[in-house]
Structures are given as C-alpha cells and as structure tokens.
C-alpha cells in the first residue's frame, strides 16, 4: 500500500503542497488531477523520495520513504514528467543500465530488458541512440524504464504526454492490464483519460486535495449530471409548452437551450428531481406523452453524463 501522510512542502515562500494525505491499495489506479503548478509533481516526487517533505511522510508497504529510501525506491517504478534519459546511450544500453543499477545482471538483466522493449513497442528502436528518438519513443523508453523491474508500485507523472492518440490508447491499455497486481498513481491533465482508466481520482489545487472520489462520483458533482437533453421541433408557444411540462411534479427545472424557427429545431434541457423514485423508462414514457399532446416530434433524447472538465473548473476556480 502507498500511504501519504500529511505531506507538506514549501519552496521559498510558496507552499507547494499542504497536508496531502491518501492511500492507494494494490489493484487501484489513482488519478491525480489538477491545474499546472497545483502540486501534483511535487507530491509524486516526495512519494519517490526525490525530494524530502518539510513535514509528513510517505510509506510504501509501511516503510517510511525518508527513513528507508533504498528499500522504498527499489519497490517503486517512477516515470518523471520531463522523462529524463541519458541521450548518448542506445535504448538497449540505457535499459541495461537501469537493470544493473537495480542490482540485476547476466541473463536476468538481458531478459528483463528484452521484455520491457517488447512491452513498450520499442523493438524497432532498440539499437538507436536516445537523442535521435522522437518524443513518443522517448516517452516509451521512460515508461520501459519505470516498469523494467516489475515494481509493485508505479508512480507515473503524465504517462501519455506527447503520444499520438493510438499510442495513448496503447499506454492506457498497458497501465490497465498491469493494475491487477500493482498500485498505480498517475497524474494527467487529460480528464477523460482519468475517467477512462482510474478507479479513483484526486483533484489537487494550490497544494491541497479538494476532491477525492471515484470518477463517477466526480461526474455527479456536475450540476447538469443526470439531466435530459431533448431535441424537438420549433416550439411556437414556449410558455404554454413549459406549463404543460410543469404538470409533471418531478421536474425541477426546464431550460430552452435553442429554439430556431428557421431550422424547425429546438433543444431543451430538463432537470428531474433527484429524490424522485421514477425510473428512466417511466420518465421517457411521460415525456413522450407530453410531446405528442403538444404535437411536437421527439427527435432525440439523451442523458447528460456529466463533464469532468466542468467539475474540474468549478472545483479549482476558487
């Protein structure tokens, strides 16, 4: 288990991280979200023992990072945001070095390097010097470095940064497939990515945790979450239409988003009371009735699934 306990760090006058605490268990993928400069990288660097906290501590398998740095570091795989690499080495040389510095040699080293090359799709570049590689390849070499010793704990700072959409998908799949036997923390500024692969997300802003929830829990914080978006014909008499809808008592609010006579089209957003016991299908049946009574065609109906970007903005704007 990775445990952060009241981690605090200042750089000069700026408090980069304040009292950050959380736990990550094996099987978890924790997403670390936050605006730039929020303290994500600083927190991760404290977890890996690269920078020492001013107060608080981090524990890996109940071992303190500040007291047993060597033991802790050998259990962690870390991908830094800037993906630093020894650019004069070839990919294979570099990965061999990563094995050697972790105490592996001989056949074991060779097989570890080969596995990492294969897993990170680096076969084509394995004899190439790192300074000749593209950003995407460099990112993959960094990733290979972090998983080469099959660590129980993975700390990944922006793992998909700089990759093209296909590569991003590959890396996400890889992270997901490794999560069963590992505890993974990853930071990202791509919110959909967090929603897609994490089972928990922490939003950090100004060095403090402002939300710690499942991605679904965060989406529910969107004020529009669960409302119905309806597309229909042009509504001539809006007031009449609204009053007919208001007859349904479980409707909280009706918003007319668009009403265009020219295109004979309108978009309506309807919020239902969250405490109502109506099921989705009952609500849809009810809506169909109302629309047919007002002789409007129900062109499409969908539920708002919540927008993480909006939640993120709401939570981080103050």
């Amino acid at each position, binding site marked *: 288990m990775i445990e952060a306990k009241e981690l605090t760090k200042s750089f000069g006058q700026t408090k980069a991280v304040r009292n950050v605490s959380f736990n990550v268990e094996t099987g978890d993928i924790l997403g670390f979200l936050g605006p730039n400069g929020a303290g994500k990288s600083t927190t991760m660097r404290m977890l890996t023992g690269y920078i020492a906290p001013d107060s608080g501590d981090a524990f890996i398998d109940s071992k303190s990072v500040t007291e047993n740095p060597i033991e802790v570091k050998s259990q962690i795989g870390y991908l830094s945001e800037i993906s630093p690499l020894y650019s004069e080495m070839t990919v294979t040389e570099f990965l061999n070095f*990563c094995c050697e510095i*972790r105490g592996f040699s001989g056949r074991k080293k060779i097989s570890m390097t080969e596995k990492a090359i294969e897993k990170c799709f680096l076969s084509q570049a394995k004899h190439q010097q790192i300074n000749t590689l593209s950003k995407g390849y460099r990112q993959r070499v960094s990733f290979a470095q972090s998983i080469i010793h099959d660590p129980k704990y993975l700390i990944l700072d922006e793992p998909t940064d700089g990759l093209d959409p296909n590569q991003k998908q590959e890396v996400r799949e890889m992270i997901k497939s490794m999560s069963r036997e590992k505890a993974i923390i990853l930071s990202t500024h791509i919110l959909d990515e967090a929603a897609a692969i994490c089972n928990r997300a922490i939003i950090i802003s100004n060095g403090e945790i402002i939300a710690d929830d499942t991605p679904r829990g965060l989406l529910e914080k969107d004020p529009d979450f669960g409302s119905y978006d309806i597309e229909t014909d042009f509504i001539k008499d809006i007031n009449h239409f609204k009053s007919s809808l208001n007859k349904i008592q479980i409707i909280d609010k009706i918003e007319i988003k668009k009403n265009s006579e020219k295109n004979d089209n309108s978009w309506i957003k309807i919020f239902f009371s969250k405490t109502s016991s109506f099921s989705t299908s009952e609500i849809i049946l009810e809506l169909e009735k109302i629309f047919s009574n007002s002789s409007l065609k129900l062109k499409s109906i969908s539920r708002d699934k919540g927008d993480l970007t909006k939640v993120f903005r709401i939570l981080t704007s103050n």
Partner: protein
Amino acid sequence: MSRSLNSVKAILKRELLSYFHSPTAYVVLVVFLILQGFFTFYVGGFYESGQAELSLFFTWHPWIFLFLAPAVTMRLFSDEKRTGTIELLMTFPVTPAEITTAKFLAAWIFISSGIVLTFPVVITVYYLGSPDTGAIISGYIGSFLMAGALISIGCFSSSITKSQVIAFLSAASLSLFLILAGHSPVIQAASGIFPKIIVNFISEMSILTHFKSLTKGIIDLRDIIYFLSIIIFMLFLNTSAINSNSK
C-alpha cells in the same frame, strides 16, 4: 554492501561509456599527451638537461591537470542537473555517496588512462640512460594522487551548479589556489606579510609542495594522507551538495 558495490559499478560503467561515446574523451587524451610532450621536450628542455630522469616531466603535471581535470569533471553533475537525469538517478535505489564515488572513480580512471599512456617517456629515459626507478614509481604515484585530488575538486564544483562553464571555472580557480599556495614567488610574497607559522601552513596546504617531494622519490605517508584527505573532504562536500538538492 554488495548492493552498494553493484550500484557504484553500474554508474561507473555508464560514466566511462559516456566518456568514450563522445569525441571529448579522445580530444582530452590527445591534448594531454601533446601538451605533455611539448612541455617536457620543448619548453622544459629535456634533452638539453642531459639527465635520464623524469622530474622535468612531472614538473608540468600540476599545470596540465589544472585544466584537464576540470574539463573531464565539469559535466559530471551539472549536466545531469541541466537535463534532469539527476531525478532519474536519485529515484533509483542508490545513495548520494554511491553516486559521488562512482562518478569520481570514473573521472579518475579516465585521467589515469592518460597518465598510463605517457609510458613512452619512461621507455625513452630507460633507453637513454639508467634512471632512478624508485623516483619514477613515486612520481607516478604522486601524479595519480594529485590527479585524484584535482578531480575531486572538479566533481564538487560540478555538483553545485547547472552550468558546465561555472563548474569548470570554479574548479580551475580552486585548484589554482591550492597549487599556487606552494609556488615559490607566492611563498616569498607571503613571508613578507605573514609570520612564519602562517607561511608554513599555506605552503603545507599546497598541492605543489606535496607533489614535488613525491617526484623526488620520497614516499612520505604525510603526502599520501594529504592527497587522500583532499579527496575524501571534497567527496564529502559533493555528497552533501547532492543531498541538499532534494531538501
């Protein structure tokens, strides 16, 4: 213990590889050997001296290493800081002392390979006459130790900055100070100002004083301890400097 050895070995190997991966290494070695020959045979007047001995050859070592050692060490830490690889290194299961030791050893081995390549000079003096073998051996011991001391200064200078230029200049200045402290004009000037005890202390601090006695064929434990203590002290400062990076 074996873990420490493994980490030192891994970093040492990487550093040596990186020396020989870049053309700088070969340039440095060639420049060293050319300067060595030039100073010994032309400036020093080796043949004119008419003596089959190497003291003339060793006289120039401190002055050549004054520039070569910082050139070899300047990128050791500053480059890692500039490119960010220090973060990678520090998140591997290795201690700052292991990193320092490995990098120091790599630079020392590299410079030593240059010293070893001066063997034709030894062959020359044996061909020309019958030199004092003891003096040659102690001279070489002195040269290796002095190179080690200057490299440890260079390592430390590199660990406190991101800039290779600053690393080079601060190492060269600090080394120049330690070398000059024993130079006779400096001692003479100092003896006009300071009491004898301080002049003696300044000359005791000097690399030149300790190196000279070794090139004369006198292996004095104090000289060896002097060089080793510079190395240990500088590596200690170096380790603390890396440690404080993560504070």
